[in-house]
């Protein structure tokens, strides 16, 4: 057989549309997932039961169910309970964001817990409130230690965005499917999609390796 990428190149517009869709979904889920994760992570760290228990239940539920099931639930089941339409983008964003929030919550919690007690003591001895100590003293130090794991999460979110194709959201893989079915060239179409993902993510992966090595050296 002969490989022929010209039929894929002819559809580069469609791939570009897919790439934009992937990036949009990625950006939404990155902000919502890591942002909400911080809130849930602080809840997991809290000593008050009414904060700790719901946060823990959230984390356990979303870590222990497949993200594709979550997306399909939001797409097929949720519209029955709410009075408005759920678009493919909304369903995918909800599923991936909540899942990422649960995973990043544990990263935040572990990062915060890794900061020595003396830092809390010193901040409180100066008269800082809990929130001030967290924002000014604890988080800036913890973020540095969490950065490799959070970048890893971002990479996972980028990969997870392909699951949105299951609800026909227009992203890279969905467009690859389209090109493959229109031109009967699944080999070239899917290979191209795989290469695009590899080229986009490989530098980020190397970056996390580098960060991990540097962090190990610093500590």
């Amino acid at each position: 057989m002969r490989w022929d990428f010209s039929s894929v190149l002819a559809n580069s517009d469609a791939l570009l549309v897919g790439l934009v869709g992937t990036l949009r979904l990625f950006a939404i889920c990155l902000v919502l997932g890591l942002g909400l994760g911080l809130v849930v992570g602080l809840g997991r760290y809290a000593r008050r039961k009414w904060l700790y228990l719901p946060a823990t239940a959230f984390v356990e539920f979303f870590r222990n169910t497949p993200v594709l099931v979550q997306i399909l639930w939001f797409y097929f089941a949720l519209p029955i309970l709410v009075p408005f339409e759920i678009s493919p983008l909304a369903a995918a964003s909800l599923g991936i964001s909540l899942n990422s929030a649960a995973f990043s919550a544990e990263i935040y919690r572990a990062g915060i817990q890794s900061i020595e007690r003396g830092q809390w003591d010193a901040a409180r001895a100066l008269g800082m409130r809990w929130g001030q100590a967290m924002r000014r003293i604890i988080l800036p130090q913890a973020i540095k230690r969490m950065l490799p794991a959070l970048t890893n999460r971002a990479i996972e979110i980028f990969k997870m965005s392909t699951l949105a194709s299951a609800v026909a959201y227009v992203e890279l893989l969905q467009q690859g499917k389209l090109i493959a079915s229109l031109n009967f060239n699944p080999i070239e179409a899917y290979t191209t999609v795989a290469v695009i993902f590899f080229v986009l993510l490989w530098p980020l992966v190397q970056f996390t390796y580098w960060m991990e090595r540097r962090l190990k050296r610093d500590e």
Partner: protein
Amino acid sequence: MTILHVRGLIKRYGTVEVLHGIDLDVERGERIAILGASGSGKSTLLRCLNFMEMPTAGEIVLDDKAVGRRERDLIAVRQRVGMVFQQFNLFPHMTALGNVMEGLRTVRRWSAAEARARAEKELARVGLADKAQTYPAHLSGGQKQRVAIARALAMDPELLLFDEPTSALDPELVGEVLNVIRSLADEGRTMLLVTHELGFAYHVATRVIFLADGRIHEQGTPDEVLKHPRMERTRAFLASHRQFSF
């Protein structure tokens, strides 16, 4: 004038009682050295005074008002009571100057310029004006502790708590920190000092408290407690710290 009354202070961890009802009055200008074997509860006592540890029972009275347990009461107390830790606890992500400015900026809400001017003054007072832009990782232990003292001083505390400020230092660095503390004593500052430096306590303190098993076992002037102790346990403790000379 009494600035701090402690009445029946009890601290328990689970079922273990560490402090069994401490009574203590601190007068303005007093310099109280707290001595005791490890496990006697001296650090816990100090940490209860600014609520780093929550007292299980008893009262701490500041300005004739018992301090409540709400966060704003605790914050009000901590702004008036400074603390210096054994392990320095400097903020590693801020320069020496940033460490000293932090309380003024975040807690007192001073402007950056005001906080900087004050912080520079405090750093100069502890002899570290030239280290303002240095991060804690590049400071010696003695320098770190001096920055930590400047950080506490910047808040203008009425009472300073020192929790074994020289115990984590190499012997050759102890002197520079003790000199700074001595200069604060000369200014007439009120302070409580948990320490193993008996010679320093003898020369600097106005009162010495010997703590044993979570109780005040003996107290008096340095001369009374350190040179002519009445209690057997105090004598035994001093005998085991014979390295000091007056």
